[in-house]
C-alpha cells in the first residue's frame, strides 16, 4: 500500500512541473515572436497567468507535504521516505520561487556568478556537518548516556547490560565501542 502512495505523489509533482514548464515555454515563444509594441499587453497577461500557475503549483506542493501529517500517511509510509519526500517537495518549491518569482530564469549569465559560489559554500557547510549527524545518530557515548533524558530503544539493551547490578563495572561500555 505504501509504495503506490509514495510513488503517486512524486509523479503528481512531476506532472505539475511539466505543466508549468509547458505554459512557460508558450510564453517564451510568444515573447520572441512579437517584439512590437502591441504585444506588450499580451505578454503582461501571459506573465500574470504564468505567475498564477506557479502559485497554484506552490499551493498543491504545500498540501502534498502537509499530507504527511495525517495518520493514513504515517501508517503507510516509512518515516525516512516521507522525510525525503518532504525535502524533495521543498526543493521543488524553492526552485519554482527562485526561477519564476525571483526572475532568475530570464536573467543573463551573471546569475551563476552569484548563486553558484553561495550554493557551493552552503553545500560544503552541510557536508561538513554530515559526520556529526552520522556519528551521533545511532550511538551515544557513555558520558552522554549517563545524562540523557531517555534511553533510546537501540541502546537500551546495551545500557542494561552495562548496568547489571551483579557484574563488575565495565570501563569500556558496549555503547562506546559501537560509536568508536
Amino acid at each position, binding site marked *: 500500500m505504501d509504495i503506490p502512495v509514495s510513488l503517486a505523489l512524486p509523479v503528481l509533482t512531476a506532472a505539475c512541473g511539466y505543466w508549468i514548464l509547458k505554459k512557460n515555454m508558450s510564453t517564451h515563444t510568444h515573447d520572441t515572436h512579437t517584439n512590437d509594441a502591441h504585444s506588450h499587453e499580451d505578454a503582461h497577461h501571459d506573465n500574470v497567468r504564468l*505567475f498564477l500557475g506557479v502559485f497554484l503549483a506552490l499551493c498543491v506542493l504545500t498540501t502534498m507535504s502537509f499530507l504527511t*501529517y495525517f495518520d493514513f500517511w504515517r501508517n503507510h509510509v516509512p518515516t525516512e521516505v516521507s522525510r525525503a519526500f*518532504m525535502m524533495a517537495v521543498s526543493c521543488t518549491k524553492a526552485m519554482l520561487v527562485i526561477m519564476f*518569482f525571483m526572475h532568475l530564469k530570464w536573467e*543573463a549569465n551573471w546569475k551563476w556568478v552569484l548563486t553558484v*559560489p553561495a550554493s557551493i559554500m*552552503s553545500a560544503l557547510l552541510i557536508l561538513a*556537518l554530515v559526520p556529526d549527524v552520522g556519528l551521533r545518530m545511532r550511538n551515544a557515548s557513555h558520558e552522554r548516556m549517563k545524562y540523557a*533524558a531517555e534511553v533510546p530503544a537501540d541502546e537500551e539493551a546495551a545500557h542494561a547490560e552495562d548496568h547489571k547490578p551483579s557484574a563488575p563495572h565495565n570501563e569500556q561500555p558496549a555503547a562506546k565501542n559501537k560509536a568508536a
Partner: protein
Amino acid sequence: MSDTHHAPQFDYQPALPIPNGKAFMWLFLSTEIMFFAGLIGTYIVLRFGAVAWPSTHDVHLAEIWGATNTFVLICSSVTVVLALEAAKKNNASGAKGWMLLTFLLGLVFLGIKMYEYNAKFSHGIYPQLPHSLIYEKPDVYYAQGVRTKLMKHKAELENKTDKTEEDTQKLGVVDDLLRQVDAAEVALRNEPDSLAGRIKIYELADRIYPRASVHEHRPDASHATHESSPFQLVAAQHESAHNGGHLVGLNDKYPWLELPIMIPGGNMWASTYFLLTGFHALHVVVGLIAFVFLLSMTLDRAAYGTIENVGLYWHFVDLVWIFLFPLLYLF
C-alpha cells in the same frame, strides 16, 4: 578644431550587466543563503543527534498553523510579483494596492507567529531561564523543583490573612501533590536500585504535563502504556477530552500552579525552534519596514528597480520558510 569630435569615448562598463542595487541585493542574499544554511544544518545535527526529541504535540506545536503560514507567505510572494508587473505597466495605483496587500499578509504571518509563540509561553516552554519550566528527566532534581514550587505556593497561601474558600481548596491541592512528591522521594531513598521511585516521579510528571507522544494521540485513554518502557501511566482526569491534540494536565487544570514540566529533549527543542523561527520572524519584520517605505513612494515605472529589490528579499524570506515548515513541524 573640433575637439569634441575626437574626444575619446569612455563607456561605463559595469562588471555585472545589472543595476548596482540589484547586484548588491543578490550579493546580500547569497550571504543570507549561507547564514540560514548554517542555522538549518546545525538544527539537523542537534535534532538527529539528540537522544530524545519531543513530538510536535508534546510542545504545543500545531501543524495546521505552520501550513497556514506557508500559504500566507506564498500568497504574499505572488502579490509582490503582481505589484512589480503593475509597476512595469506604469500602473502606480495598482502596484500600491498589491503592495498594501503584501504588507497585510506579512502582518498576518507575524500575527499567527505571535499566537503560536504564546501557546508555548503559556505552558512554560521558553528557550531559557528564568521563565522556562522544562526539565529533561523524571529524576530527583525534577522532584526537587516540583517541591520547591509547591512549598512556595503553600507558604503564600498559609500567610494570607483572609483565606477564602478558593484558597483552602488550593491549599488542599498543594498538600495532596506534596504527599505524592514525598511518597516518590521516600521510595527513591529506601530502594535506590528499584524502579519504583522513578516510576512514581514519572507518573507525577505525567499528571502535571501529560505528553501527547506518550499517550499516543488518544486523549480519551486514561490508561496508556509507553511502548519502549515498563512504565504504566495513569493520566489525569481530562476535563476537555480534545484540546487541539494536546492533553490537559494539572498545569492546565490549575493554571496558578505553574509546576515544572518534564519534556525529554525539550530544552534543545525550545532553543532551536525559537532561534530558527525568531531569525526568520526578524527577517519578516525587516521586510515589513521596507514595504512601509515603498508604500510612501509613487510606484510607477521609475520605482521598478526598488520594488524588484524588495521583492527579491521578500521571496528569499518565503524561501527560508518553505524549508523551515517541514523541518520544524512535520519531521
